[in-house]
């Protein structure tokens, strides 16, 4: 496929915009000196990711991303940040020294290279059948509760454990509260 063909298709443009959004958001997250801006950068990244999933026809994943990550996780992030400390403006101390930055960049770069290489290695020659319309949620549900029922149950058990752990951590004993 030449670049000319690539650029002639609308969905590729959409892809480019979304990919740019994902990257820009990600850079904002690590670069911003304001915690809230960083969290909002994460919104941009996740929103663009949801868009990418939509482009692939994976509606369910896309809307789950919006609902769970943007609607709940990030909101809780912001909530937590604002209720404890919410300075407007910038914090100098939020940035790490250069040595940490360089190390982080190297780690991130090599991780990206590794995953990219693994994907290319595994799937380069595979041509996926074009999906006709969006994936039906019912199909996901059926496969989740037939083929993948044990992982699903394990996951839900893990989440329950996390929930209880959260409650235990957050709960203040009456005796302690009296102190």
């Amino acid at each position, binding site marked *: 496929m030449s670049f000319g063909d690539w650029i002639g298709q609308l969905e590729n443009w959409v892809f480019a915009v979304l990919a740019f959004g994902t990257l820009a958001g990600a850079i904002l997250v690590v670069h911003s000196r*304001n915690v*809230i*801006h960083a969290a*909002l950068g994460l*919104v941009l990244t996740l929103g663009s990711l949801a868009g990418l999933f939509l482009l692939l026809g994976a*509606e*369910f994943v896309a*809307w*789950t991303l*919006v*609902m769970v990550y*943007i*609607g*709940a996780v*990030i*909101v*809780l992030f*912001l*909530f937590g940040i*604002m*209720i404890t400390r*919410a300075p*407007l*403006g910038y914090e100098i101390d939020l940035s790490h020294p250069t040595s940490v930055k360089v190390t982080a960049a190297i780690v991130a770069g090599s991780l990206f290279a590794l995953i990219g290489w693994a994907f290319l290695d595994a799937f380069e020659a595979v041509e996926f059948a074009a999906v006709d319309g*969006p994936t*039906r*949620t*019912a199909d996901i549900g059926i496969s989740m509760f037939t083929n993948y029922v044990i992982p699903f149950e394990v996951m839900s058990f893990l989440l329950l454990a996390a929930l209880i752990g959260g409650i235990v951590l957050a709960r203040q004993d009456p005796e302690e509260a009296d102190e």
Partner: protein
Amino acid sequence: MSFAVLLTIKVLAVLGLMIGGALVVIFAELKIGAHMQNRMGPYFAGGRFGWAQPLADGLKFMQKEDLVPDGADERVYKLAPYVVLMGTVGVFVVLPLSPRFVARDLDLGAFYALAISSLTTLGVLMAGWSSNNKYSLIGGLRAAAQLIAYELPLVLAVVAVAIQAGTLSISGIIEAQAVPVFTIGELNVALPYILTGQIIGFAIFFIASIAELSRIPFDMPIAESELTMGFVTEYSSIRFTMFFLAEYAGMLSMSALATAFYLGGYQLPGLSSTAIEVLGPVIFISKVFLLSFVFIWLRWTLPRFREDQLQSLAWRWLIPAALLNIAITATFKVVF
């Protein structure tokens, strides 16, 4: 018709439905509220009933200066109303006014509607934080705490509906309510879900949606006697209008979702499918306004709860009730 033209028409239809509907609901709030309070309400703008009052209000707001408070985080401050509005407009995309009259009938419309409407929380938090005002911050935090707490029962209530209907598509849910429940002689009687097992679900959905919309008795985020105006305290001009519009459009969209999930959407028992093709939008909109009226009615009757009372209502009563509702619905679904 080309894709682009169709898209344009759909976008305009969705926006028109949202803004037009919101204006009607605003007018209804002004007028019904006034009559409940022994007042006249608007009577001048536009002629006899003051029908143009919402428009006049909107125009007036737009003429005002768009103020950004000193020390505010300008970018976030300016972005917040758009995020709120986006979450509201998104829902209108999947609302079916009749079997054919829908902008985009998604396979998981119900899920989509709830997901996209959760964006408003984000916008409210952004507005509250970026205003550089303590009242705004407290209001934003209250709003977020409230929306997080009530998102759960809301979604859980819809889960029960989805189980009963066997689909997440809004049209699918409405069609499922057209399936006859029993027959009297020749007549097949189809009933909306509120009458066939989801009455508790409807109550949970309705209470949770009042809280989602931050309306009295759950309007702590903007409680004017405590927080002046909560997270919208600092907003003016067009950005205030956007919050205002989003509130009423949200009321409309929540009523529409409740109509679709529990009141049979565009269906009316006893009407043939041809009649529904034609009368569908009228039936749907009537039901939506009926529910909106209840919202308004409560708004002008009740005082507001306290934030902790609202939280305990959500976590101690609504969520367990919603879970129980799911269990019962699922049991019936499996047994019958």
